[in-house]
């Protein structure tokens, strides 16, 4: 049985925004984390199920080198983050995939590792991409220190003082991860091997657990080094300051193609969020409790928007708009909900559509979902995807039906003139040197003949033209036998037939396209905040900022 047939609120469908509105890069690039984001889903589960956390191994020496194990025990299974702490000279610190050394490296182990497991991991995990892990590991990751804040925090704590708040707020994290690999990468367990476990069936739960335990490690190692340096004079980090620290994350183009390569998954994420918004909008009233919750969430969002910093011109402009938007929203809700108003949430949404920037509108979604958990949290279970089930083409579909489906779902493609240089200005490729995805300029760089199939708009238009030359009653099977080059796009069109939010509706090779828009959308679904572009292809964010730590949930598990 699928989620659609279980939907308790079919009436909400009328309030859903159409894909033509939602699946645009400018809007996706303004996405905000919501309570359906994957890290929030993880935290809800561990709280509801009463998971416990502890740190059974802490073998870190006075120079901050060694290993540690963080254990997460749920109702059915235990997972352990195995952490290796290194001593990294400053000149070797890089966030790129091309880096060869990190301040700390991690693997999430499926169960409780023996000392033999730890030794095996110690020989491989610090090497990251150059090592191999096994199906006993669910993730492989690494993190670098924020040299500035990490050093400052240790120095202050060692002297018995708390860090300077301006320093803390300027950075927001002690360490940032630069890659968190899951899903069978480097020999780790395949997604298929864990997808039927309730606690891991939602997307990226193993990765989120790994990062959350890493957040604990970043504080533990800083306090450890402060005590080494300061001895009896040293103090622990103040709990309020600690709560305000997230785990940073730094990511580049490697993440951008993901949403294009996983259309069904993208649909299910978007559909769940859009259905959540629609459910809230469709309500006849707003309870006093929900209204109060909305006001609280708005207050927190305004605080977050003040602390959110970026030096990138695009984001500076968007942040200014967001702060204005949240201020207008605060004014607007001073009298909301109006007495006798019909569907007050929908009225608020319609107001936002005209009064707010895209950044503000997408923030409004998060705020409207926040006090309506009972209505929307179950949708988190609908965000996974069995991609294998949608892989097989239906060759019995006629050319006419596929063509009509293309016109329905890809109407935005048909008007693009690909003879205009600005519409084909870029091409996606994989670099021979690093095997990392990159974006080239078609008219200035070599390699366009090796273009990756991320130029969906052009592929769709090509398919549409090819189909037009065939009689409508011919089966797609016969067309594909003559045109194997259209098999890739025909599969996507059939997917769109069933999954309307599966495709980004913008030309991904256009001159003005911003890869960071794709990245922001994906990162918002993870639950990332403080989106801070470092270029149009590279971004830093923060995870778990303002949320509890494992040690908050099991204080007895920590020394």
């Amino acid at each position, binding site marked *: 049985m699928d989620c659609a047939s279980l939907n308790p609120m079919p009436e909400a469908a009328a309030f859903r925004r159409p894909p033509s509105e939602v699946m645009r890069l400018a809007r996706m690039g303004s996405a905000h984390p919501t309570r359906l984001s994957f890290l929030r889903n993880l935290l809800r589960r561990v709280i509801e199920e009463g998971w416990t956390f502890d740190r059974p191994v802490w073998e870190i020496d006075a120079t901050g080198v060694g290993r540690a194990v963080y254990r997460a025990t749920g109702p059915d299974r235990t997972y352990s983050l195995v952490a290796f702490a290194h001593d990294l000279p400053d000149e070797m610190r890089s966030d790129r995939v091309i880096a060869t050394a990190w301040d700390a490296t991690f693997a999430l182990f499926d169960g409780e590792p023996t000392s033999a497991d730890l030794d095996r991991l110690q020989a491989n995990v610090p090497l990251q*991409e150059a090592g191999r892990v096994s199906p006993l590991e669910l993730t492989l990751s690494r993190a670098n220190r924020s040299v500035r804040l990490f050093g400052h925090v240790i120095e202050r704590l060692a002297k018995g003082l708390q860090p300077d708040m301006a320093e803390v707020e300027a950075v927001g994290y002690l360490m940032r991860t630069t890659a968190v690999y899951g899903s069978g990468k480097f020999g780790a367990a395949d997604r298929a091997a864990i997808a039927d476990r309730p606690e891991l069936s939602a997307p990226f739960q193993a990765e989120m657990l790994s990062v959350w335990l890493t957040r604990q490690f970043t504080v533990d190692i800083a306090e450890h080094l402060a005590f080494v340096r300061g001895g009896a004079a040293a103090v622990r980090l103040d709990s309020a300051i600690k709560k305000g620290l997230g785990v940073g994350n730094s990511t580049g183009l490697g993440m951008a193609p993901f949403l294009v390569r996983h259309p069904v998954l993208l649909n299910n994420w978007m559909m769940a969020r859009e259905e959540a918004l629609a459910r809230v909008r469709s309500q006849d009233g707003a309870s006093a409790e929900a209204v109060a919750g909305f006001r609280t969430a708005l207050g927190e969002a305004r605080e977050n928007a003040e602390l959110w910093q970026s030096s990138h011109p695009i984001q500076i402009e968007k942040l200014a708009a967001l702060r204005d938007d949240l201020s207008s929203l605060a004014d607007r809700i001073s009298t909301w909900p109006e007495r006798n108003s019909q569907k007050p949430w929908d009225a608020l949404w319609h107001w936002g559509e005209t009064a707010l920037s895209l950044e503000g509108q997408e923030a409004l979604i998060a705020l409207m979902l926040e006090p309506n958990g009972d209505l929307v949290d179950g949708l988190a279970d609908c965000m996974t995807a069995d991609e294998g089930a949608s892989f097989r083409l239906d060759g019995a579909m006629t050319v006419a039906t596929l063509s009509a489906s293309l016109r329905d779902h890809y109407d935005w493609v048909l008007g693009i003139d690909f003879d205009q240089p600005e519409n084909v200005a870029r091409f996606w490729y994989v670099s021979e040197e690093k095997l990392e995805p990159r974006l080239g300029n078609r008219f200035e760089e070599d390699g366009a003949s090796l273009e990756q199939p991320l130029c969906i708009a052009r592929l769709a238009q090509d398919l549409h033209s090819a189909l037009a030359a065939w009689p409508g009653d011919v089966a797609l099977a016969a067309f594909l036998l003559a045109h194997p080059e259209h*098999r890739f796009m025909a*599969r996507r069109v059939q997917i769109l037939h069933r999954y309307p939010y599966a495709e980004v509706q913008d030309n991904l090779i256009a001159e003005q396209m911003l890869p960071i828009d794709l990245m922001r959308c994906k990162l918002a679904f993870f639950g990332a905040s403080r989106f801070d572009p470092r270029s149009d292809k590279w971004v830093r964010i923060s995870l778990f900022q303002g949320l509890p730590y494992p040690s908050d949930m099991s204080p007895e598990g920590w020394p």
Partner: protein
Amino acid sequence: MTAEQQEAVEANDPTRSGSPVPTTNGARLSQNEIEQLCLKAARGAGMSWGLAEEAGFAAAWLATRGLDGPGALLAQLWVGQGRSWREICPVIAPGRFRAADGGGLCPIALGAALCDHARLPETSLVETAVRVGPVDHPVLLLPFLADFARTRREGLRLVWSRGAVLLTADGGMFGDAAALEQETRLDAALEVEGPVPDDTSTQWEPLMVSAETLGELNSFALRITVPTSEVSRAGAGAAIGDND
């Protein structure tokens, strides 16, 4: 880090985010790694993106059943070198999938075509078997026949002169798959199967892929990568330093 580990790092180029699996001794690959590596290799060998996806799917499907999908695909990629699509794709008549010139069909092209026709009259199977072939590296057909059986919700038997394999609608596989792995080209027939045995699925172990297979698949995969230029290097990272 020991000297040996240091050497391993350099030998394996730690800077790669793709599939830098150690090729000196072979490696146990996850399903995802096999699928991705084989997709890239198939594309590098000249398949269309859509067929390369089918190749990745097929290799990973076989690997999860203990069969050397990557090895079979690699052998097929070599066989297909220099042959046009017309030579290796099936010509279809009711009850018959063969190559235009009577040569060996590509099992990926044949398998995909069979699945595309699973609900069409060309594969009715009601009265008679469908004859296929000659087809090269026929073990690569099995993943497609499994999907065919699932689509049709009935068991399907691949029969050739020296054996038979049964694929069930729920993904089970019985019979002489290991013998089929040894065949490099054959003619076969597809028959509908009546009642089928229960699936006796076994625990999956990651497939050990030989150093030679990995090395050659990697070589094919590298054909779709673009040599680095200063421009591409410069655009790849942050515009400002990471050391803050």
